[in-house]
């Protein structure tokens, strides 16, 4: 029986690693050297079993210094990744620091992308702070609290796909904290009222 349960901020599972998972694992093995990250949005539901793929794997990172960002960029490029802009200065100052996401993908495979954004809003920072460590087979990844995902998808995004993602998480996770969902819901509604 699978029913996932987060205990003390951790969860363990043994699953078949998909090509999408492998892309995420490989790309994050570079990023994690330079920044704290947390996976969010559709990929969270997919990692925990939702029967769909995605082209965009979204994540938040902590504030990152220009030096660390340029090191990350250089290593990624040297390992055959590309970015939406080929100028790291512009990526850092005009995108990341301007609250825009940057895209990273395997050379010649631009349809599957990591979308990296700095956590600026309080709920996004809380998502990073309260991230869960998920051990899979031989490694681990950091995911947003499931309660945050459910709240954000149901209160803000609200597309059919997002409502379905939220429903999936509600069913496969055990002991979800309903107070945390309510609290995240109030917070994101307040934050996104002003854009």
């Amino acid at each position, binding site marked *: *029986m699978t029913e996932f349960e987060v205990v003390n901020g951790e969860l363990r599972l043994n699953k078949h690693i998909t090509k999408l998972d492998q892309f995420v694992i490989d790309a994050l093995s570079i990023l994690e050297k330079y920044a704290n990250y947390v996976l969010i949005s559709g990929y969270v539901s997919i990692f925990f079993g939702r029967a769909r793929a995605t082209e965009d794997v979204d994540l938040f990172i902590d504030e990152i210094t220009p030096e660390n960002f340029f090191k990350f960029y250089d290593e990624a490029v040297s390992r055959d990744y590309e970015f939406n802009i080929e100028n790291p200065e512009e990526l850092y100052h005009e995108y990341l620091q301007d609250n825009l996401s940057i895209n990273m993908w395997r050379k010649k495979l*631009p349809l599957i992308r990591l979308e990296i954004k700095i956590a600026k809003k309080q709920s996004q920072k809380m998502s990073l702070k309260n991230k869960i460590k998920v051990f899979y087979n031989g490694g681990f990844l950091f995911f947003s609290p499931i309660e945050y995902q459910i709240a954000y998808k149901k209160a803000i995004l609200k597309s059919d796909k997002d409502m379905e993602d939220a429903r999936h998480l509600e069913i496969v996770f055990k002991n979800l904290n309903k107070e945390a969902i309510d609290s995240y819901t109030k917070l994101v509604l307040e934050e996104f009222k002003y854009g």
Partner: protein
Amino acid sequence: MDKQRIFFVEKWAEFVRINDDEKWSKIQAELVDSQIENAQDMALTKEQVDYIKRGKLQ
């Protein structure tokens, strides 16, 4: 929400919930991998992908 779609989402989630990781993830991997392979087969350029995705909120 489309009632039929949500019915199948719930049905699949229930399958994930009551079965071992090994069982559900093998089926899921086949589905996800086939979608990824289809995307790779399209071999679109970065510019073509940007064109398709244009309009997406950042």
